[in-house]
């Protein structure tokens, strides 16, 4: 206590002493206009300011043991010159600091603290980043995958039980001017042992970005995600689903677009011109997780422009404390085709994708309360007969440090609803309940597991899903994925044309396709 007094007291006396020793100047000796790592940048800034204020600026060298900094300051100023300079600095939005030499010695931690009211930052000095950090060279990362899928049974059409594939994805990024301009390129390739259609390549991303303080523009193939729920991505319609990659709809094809995005006090506004259309990928005849009929490559479109139509999308989103809200509108060719049966030349039934034009207006919202998160997404959509609505919502609770361990456990409960009920031809989730548990061990290997079940409350068919992953070493990832389908009717023999229309047969084509997938990924 008494020592505190001594220390505090000493400070007070020192300050008082200084105050008494020199009448407090209403101006500082000099004004500083920032510090630079590069002498050249400091000289440039000094030259610019000398012109701006009609006053010679000097560059002082500060060696703080760690490195050398070049500070741009005015020369010693009179009170008049000081106030003239600070006024014009404020007027032209240039930040400045006062550096009186006396003040500098008395208050070392404080000398540069008093700032102009204006929060406008001077043109940022071009700080040279280290090589490999995107300023001077491109960044590249490969990820290579080896994936095996083992199925519990032979397929309905006697497809094999084992499926082996390899994949490669490159991520290339190159930025200029502090990454305010950049190019991103992400090609993807998979080669599959069983399904020739699953051997496919895609440009996931190839776009140019131009970034300003309050807005940015991106031109090229890109991936955009919309939505909040865990097991169903209802409103995520910007990109086409790469269904052949995975049934969960989380893999997407690159969508060519021009995206304009702006950050405003009233939220973030994104406007998309979607240039051209990508068809959904479906497994081939030898593949698994496929419909009982072949899906033809040649799709039909409602739009006369077919794949060349330019679609439009707009989304606004904002948050306020624990609430987050997004509104969107999409006008264009639907990403979800209707599969229309027809007879091929050999009298085989085949399915032809038909892509209608839709107008979709929707919402996504989230709210947090304590450990709880509440989520909702939904839309109303025209184009599939009458306009209809669909909702997907639920809640999530996260428990930190379960059972005294360092693990987190998240509980997810969601419900999916489609106004059309049984007549909802383009989704399996029309009256379904999903329950999931996510475990994160928070260990070195970031071990995580998500176990879920999606249950149709009307027809009692369900799918159980497991997704787990664990890092091995620093550059490998082992992931495990499994799905079991049950409760649904098996495909009838012989197959009738109405199989896909009967609501109780909706998941019949999946009933033989329980599988376990093991994947190793190597990052280079």
């Amino acid at each position, binding site marked *: 206590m008494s020592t505190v007094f001594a220390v505090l007291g000493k400070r007070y006396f020192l300050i008082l002493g200084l105050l008494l020793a020199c009448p407090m100047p209403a101006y500082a000796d000099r004004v500083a206009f920032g510090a630079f790592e590069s002498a050249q940048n400091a000289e440039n800034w000094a030259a610019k300011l000398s012109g701006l204020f009609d006053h010679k600026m000097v560059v002082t060298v500060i060696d703080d043991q760690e490195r050398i900094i070049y500070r741009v300051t005015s020369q010693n100023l009179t009170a008049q010159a000081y106030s003239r300079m600070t006024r014009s600095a404020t007027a032209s939005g240039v930040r400045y600091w006062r550096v009186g030499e006396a003040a500098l010695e008395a208050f070392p931690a404080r000398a540069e603290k008093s700032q102009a009211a204006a929060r406008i930052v001077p043109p940022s000095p071009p*700080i040279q980043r280290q090589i490999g950090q995107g300023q001077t060279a491109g960044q590249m990362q490969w990820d290579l995958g080896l994936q095996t899928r083992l199925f519990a049974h032979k397929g309905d059409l006697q497809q094999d039980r084992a499926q082996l594939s390899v994949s490669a994805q490159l991520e290339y990024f190159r930025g200029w001017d502090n990454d305010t301009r950049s190019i991103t390129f992400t090609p993807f390739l998979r080669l599959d042992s069983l399904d020739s259609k699953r051997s496919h390549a895609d440009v996931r991303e190839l776009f140019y970005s131009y970034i300003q303080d309050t807005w940015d523009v991106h031109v090229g193939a890109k991936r955009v*995600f919309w939505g909040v729920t865990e097991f169903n991505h209802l409103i995520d319609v910007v990109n086409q689903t790469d269904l052949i990659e995975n049934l969960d709809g989380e893999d997407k094809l690159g969508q060519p677009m021009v995206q304009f995005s702006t950050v405003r006090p009233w939220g973030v506004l994104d406007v998309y011109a979607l240039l051209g259309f990508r068809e959904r990928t479906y497994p081939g005849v030898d593949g698994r997780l496929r419909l009982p009929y072949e899906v033809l490559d040649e799709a039909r479109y409602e739009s006369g422009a077919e794949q060349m139509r330019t679609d439009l999308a707009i989304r606004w989103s904002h948050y306020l404390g624990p609430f987050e809200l997004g509104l969107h509108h999409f006008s264009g060719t639907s990403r979800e085709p209707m599969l229309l049966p027809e007879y091929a030349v050999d009298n085989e039934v085949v399915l032809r994708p038909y892509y209608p034009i839709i107008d979709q207006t929707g919402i996504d919202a989230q709210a947090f309360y304590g450990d709880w998160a509440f989520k909702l997404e939904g839309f109303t959509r025209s184009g599939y007969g009458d306009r209809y609505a669909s909702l997907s919502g639920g809640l999530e609770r996260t428990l930190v440090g379960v059972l005294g361990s360092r693990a987190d456990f998240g509980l997810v409960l969601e419900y999916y609803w489609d106004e059309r009920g049984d007549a909802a031809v383009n989704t399996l989730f029309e009256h379904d309940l999903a329950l999931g548990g996510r475990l994160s061990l928070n260990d070195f290997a970031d071990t995580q597991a998500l176990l879920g079940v999606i249950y149709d409350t009307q027809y009692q068919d369900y799918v159980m899903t497991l997704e787990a992953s664990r890092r091995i070493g620093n550059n490998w990832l082992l992931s495990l994925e499994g799905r079991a389908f049950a409760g649904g009717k098996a495909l009838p023999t012989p197959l009738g044309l109405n199989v896909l229309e009967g609501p109780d047969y909706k998941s019949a084509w999946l009933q033989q396709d329980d599988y376990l997938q093991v994947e190793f990924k190597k990052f280079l």
Partner: protein
Amino acid sequence: MFLSPLLFAAYHNDVALLNHSVIRTLVRLFLLWICLALPSTAMALTPEQQGRNIFEEADRRNSGYVDLEVELQMILRSPRGVANERLLRIKQLEIPDDGDKVLLVFDSPADVRGTALLSHAHKEADDDQWVFLPALKRVKKIASKNRGSPFMGSEFSYENLSTPELEKYHYRFLDQQMLNGVSCFLVERLPKQTSSAYSKEHFWIDQDEYRIQQVEYFDSVNRLEKRLVVSQYKRFGNYWKAGRMLMTNLLSKRSTELLWRNYRFSVGLDERRDFSVNSIRRAR
């Protein structure tokens, strides 16, 4: 103490105007009283005020650099000494009259490369936090209540790493102690929020530069759970920044070392360009 220059000026005016020896003496006596009274009011502070003052001073000395960029290496060690490493880059922006905005981007391990975490701290309200998952290109708002959860498998929780806002705690000055030859204030910090994982924290703050030297974290049952030792302070202009932080979990014997490198200050970061929900989805 900020009044003193005003009084001093007033005294000069009085001298010029009144020119009366009695009044001059009175004014002098008054000034002398002020000078003597100020330190004694400092002595009369309650431990709570003292504690808060120390934190305010520490906060004052550690703010004003506008923005910074820094690189962070995390070394995670198991009780048996198995080590694991993460690399990330951090951008931070001071917001006048509100909490800092921080963007973290992961460079390593490779499977989480490109994952980004954005947080907007607030003086009183709950912090806003988002995570960007590059595989799905998904920006996910996350509940800031899960603050006790370990950050990237380390011994630092989200709470330990968040920029502490003065208003969110009560303080109490306890003692002064020598710590590794440095004389420190020992101040207790008590969270106002029930979401904190700790019942209390003990801070050792050095008396010379008001830098945090050591922190001890007490869990909900008041058991000493973790100790943070901060060292290798370096001076950058007017700011002292730590080069090394070592957090040891005294119960599990696991530890995490943070090595801070390449501090850069006042680089011209922009609130909307670099710290908006939009910027997290293009962070790299």
